[in-house]
């Protein structure tokens, strides 16, 4: 099968949707002429024209809000916010409008739109362009939160996101855009709320999101040599969360590590840890361990940024701690 980058996979999904559904249109800063700050929307302006690929002014509240209004009245907008950090400029629109409309209106109104954002440090973009607070959106009822980790998952999940009747926060990762993987040419969807066992194992479960999936997979080989088989579970969507797959894996291995970029405090890993402690505590052979960033804003200086990012070394260190309970 041919390989595409994560950015190209999303690009292809967007193209296939723009082609088959005229209700779909894009909005965002520099997505047209420039092709998007990470080139995810490259070539789309030429292909579909300025009516469907709109370069917006720097007014997040305005264009996210406009997308909500458009979605409520029959369109299927896919909006890009350049970095998750900038969602703060549109927070009222996201939290008070997008998430609550269907509920508050008793079902008399829905917001079928996709909001594309990206997380992740590692490009020296400093504190206001590198945070990963996607957990925040998991905490807002009414929002769907999707976190693809591979090009294959990204295309399939984007297709599902555009079809879905609910507002979807599509969380991409800066460091994943250039990663490559096999992607089918045809249109396909991946259901929400269905985790993917990226690697089966029997000794330790790692539940990982976004870039942490690849980082976790990278350490598995080494531990396999020691006879320790790690199972890597990629939830793919945080809301809805595939609880069953996670619990099944933990019941099998009895040992859980949760890896998610961003500080562990109130993070995605905290939620998953609590769930497991609540519903499968008697299966635990060891305490639940979490891998994440330190509790600081993202520092600029390269050596500090490197420490900030939870990478292979951090995953390895945590697996080593878990070994004491094998």
């Amino acid at each position, binding site marked *: 099968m041919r390989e595409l980058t994560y950015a190209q996979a999303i690009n292809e999904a967007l193209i296939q949707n723009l082609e088959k559904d005229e209700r779909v249109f894009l909005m965002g800063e520099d997505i047209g002429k420039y092709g998007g700050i990470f080139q995810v929307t490259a070539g789309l302006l030429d292909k579909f024209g300025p009516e469907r690929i709109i370069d917006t002014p720097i007014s997040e509240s305005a264009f996210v809000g406009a997308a909500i209004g458009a979605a409520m009245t029959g369109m299927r907008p896919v909006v890009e916010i350049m970095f998750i950090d900038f969602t703060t400029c549109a927070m009222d629109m996201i939290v008070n409008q997008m998430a609550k409309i269907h509920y508050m209106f008793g079902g008399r109104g829905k917001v079928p739109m996709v909001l594309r954002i990206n997380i992740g440090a590692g490009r020296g973009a400093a504190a206001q362009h590198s945070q990963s607070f996607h957990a925040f959106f998991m905490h807002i009822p009414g929002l769907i939160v999707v976190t693809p980790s591979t090009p294959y998952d990204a295309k399939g999940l984007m297709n599902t996101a555009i079809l879905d009747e609910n507002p979807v926060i599509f969380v991409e990762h800066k460091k994943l855009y250039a990663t490559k993987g096999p992607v089918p040419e045809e249109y396909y969807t991946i259901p929400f709320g269905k985790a993917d066992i990226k690697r089966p194992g029997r000794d330790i479960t790692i539940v990982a999101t976004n870039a942490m999936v690849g980082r976790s997979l990278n350490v598995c080989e080494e531990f396999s040599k020691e006879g320790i088989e790690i199972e890597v579970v990629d939830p793919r969507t945080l809301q809805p969360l595939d609880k069953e797959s996670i619990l099944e894996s933990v019941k099998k291995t*009895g040992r859980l590590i949760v890896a998610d970029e961003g500080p562990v405090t109130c993070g995605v890993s905290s939620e998953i840890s609590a769930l497991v402690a609540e519903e499968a*505590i*008697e*299966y*635990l*052979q*060891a*305490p639940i361990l979490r891998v994440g960033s330190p509790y600081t804003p993202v520092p600029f200086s390269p050596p500090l940024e490197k420490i900030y990012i939870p990478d292979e070394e951090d995953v390895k260190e945590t697996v080593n701690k878990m070994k*004491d*309970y094998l």
Partner: protein
Amino acid sequence: MMKESEFPNRTVKIRAVPAARRRAEREGIDLSPVEGSGPGGIILEKDIEHFRITQGAVEGTLVTGKIHASSLARKLAEKRGVPIETVEGTGTRGRIMMGDVIKATEKPVILIKEKGIFGQTIPMTQMRKVIAKRMAQSAFTAPHIYFFTDVEMDELVKLREKILGDFEKQFNVRLSINDFIIKAVALTIREFPMLNAMVKGEEIHVMPEINIGLAVAMEEGLIVPAIPRADQLGLGKIAEMRADMVGRARLGKLKLEEIERGTFTVSSLAQYDVIFFTAILNPPQSGILSIGKTCDQLALKEGQVITKKIARFGLSVDHRIIDGTVAAAFLQSLKKRLEDPTFTFMHL
């Protein structure tokens, strides 16, 4: 929030991972003897496996100590006069619930005295079930060895006769031969502490106090209330307590604690035409004394034919911790005490 160290009387908690705890509960294993190999000595599930293997044929140690029962169950049991330990628990992990007590205090459908009993299948009462379980447990866990000796009861009988009247006036209770035996056994145990011990895994727990239990036969089964610190009590006190507890036992008004505290049991069938019998240890105790009927027997004394009052005493012990010589010595010492009561029962 108070720290662990601020609770002075709290015992050290056993650290174990949840999966290990679940395994232990399921298999009835007491975690205290299990060695943990996890960080900081925490018990892992594999440590329980290991423990079971090294214990050999033993199907896990008896879960000693506290009987798990809800507070409602305990209250009801006390109210209805059923010793809580005889109630079979159907709650989580064998916990005794109020419903179980209710069930246990239901009158048994068929009494043993009824004539139409032959050919019938009788369900076991709750109490019988518990007794059956514990008897089996004891028999198959503790290797029993048995010892017998004939005790000349003449002096003891004479002594009792002599003080009977005054005793009753002072203590308001009729002195029984068993009272003497209880005291004598307690004093003898002082010399032989192993008879007051209990096996727990690989440890021998020598109990701090000598509490002699006296087996009381009831319609439903045996009950064994214990006289606390019998070695330190005067005969009068022993008699008082004995009378009180036996009385309450017959009425079903014993407290659980009165049964649980026992460290050694005395079982008498002296009122029946039974010369001697072997008794099964009352778990988790390590020794039990069985007393047969006192009979007049012919004996020779300096060429003369005399009669002696002979009672055959039997001693069963847990061979894991009590060897033959110890048991024999104990029995010998007890015999001596009973045959020379004046010295024994002088409060020296």
